[in-house]
């Protein structure tokens, strides 16, 4: 049997055969991007973790049908997309219910332990949080698919073709979706884009004008 080129796919094949350690490695690797995606989509950290947990449980339950036909990241982000959009639809139908009710029952309440990552000085932190809040606000106002497309675009390991597969769209439709989303974001964030709030690394991405 030819060795799969994607190391995550190889781990998933081991997990498919019941190797819990391989599955644990995958959880370790993907927990951050999946929780971040959920958090940016729903803007609720607690629910983002719950949904990420559902994603990993689904990955484990669906392991028997896993075939190496694409990168593992495409597969897991597709599951994450389904879980996330289902949750958004569920919220719109039953806004008062919590996601906790759909999680597997536990004897003891799950307590989460967070580390404190804040390293900003007060003025820097204030500016940073304000800008972050503005971007999040603008993201929240986007239609779900556009928001998801823009957030997937931030994933380094996903190409446009893979983002298209995750979204279930053609490549051109995906690019068009991202373009529309970015146009809306530019419009909403124009005052901040004009002030140069994000100019500190300008030289890295935009060449200076040659006279």
């Amino acid at each position, binding site marked *: 049997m030819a060795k799969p080129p994607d190391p995550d796919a190889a781990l998933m094949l081991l997990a498919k055969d019941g190797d819990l350690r391989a599955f644990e490695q995958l959880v*370790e690797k993907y927990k951050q991007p999946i929780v971040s995606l959920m958090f940016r989509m729903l803007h609720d950290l607690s629910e983002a973790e719950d949904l990420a*947990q559902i994603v990993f*449980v689904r990955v*484990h339950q669906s392991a028997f049908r896993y075939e190496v036909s694409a990168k593992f990241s495409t597969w897991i982000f597709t599951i994450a997309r389904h879980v996330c959009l289902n949750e958004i639809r569920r919220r719109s139908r039953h806004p008062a219910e919590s996601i906790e009710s759909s999680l*597997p029952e536990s004897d003891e309440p799950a*307590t989460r332990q967070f580390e404190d990552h804040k390293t900003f000085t007060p003025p820097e932190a204030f500016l940073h949080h304000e800008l972050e809040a503005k971007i999040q606000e603008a993201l929240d106002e986007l239609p779900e698919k556009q928001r998801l497309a823009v957030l997937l675009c931030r994933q380094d390991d996903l190409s446009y073709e893979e983002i298209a597969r995750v979204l279930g769209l053609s490549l051109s439709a995906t690019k068009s979706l991202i373009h529309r989303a970015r146009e809306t974001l530019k419009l909403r*964030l124009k005052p901040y884009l004009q002030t140069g709030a*994000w100019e500190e690394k300008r030289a890295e991405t935009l060449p200076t004008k*040659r006279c």
Partner: protein
Amino acid sequence: MSTVNDDMPDSVSQELTELAWRRGLTPDEQARLRQYLAARPQARRQWEYEAALTRGLNSLPPAPVSSNFTALVLQAVQRAPARPVWRRRLDPALWLPRGWMPRLALGATMVCLSLLTVREYQTIQRQRMARDLASVGSLATLQPVDWLQNFHTIENLSRVEVADDALLQIVQR
């Protein structure tokens, strides 16, 4: 006079834009961008917005993940009921071909087979009906009922118990 389109076609600009959505441009790509912006200064502002937006999006910090997240997931996985084997085997994902083209082909084949089956059934039904009609039609060729009015008399003739020897002799001659 050189036009903008001569210097850089829009497809190249589009390509650079799509690259810049995802990451910082390489020196080679930056040189191409410089060439593009030199020919099209009015696009510079738009590029600045694009770059600032990309930086803004990339500056969003990753969401904090609880340190026991993996442990919670593993607990949930072990608690979650395993799917019975028979349900796994019935899972369409296992026997459906991958990709929409093969699935479409399979669907089309199934529809064609269904149509052929229905058509064959209809043909058989028609043939049976035709046979039934033909047998009803053959009733029309039966002899008239009047012919049967002396049926019982004729039938009784054969029940003569004593042989008519005289008649037999006449017949034998």
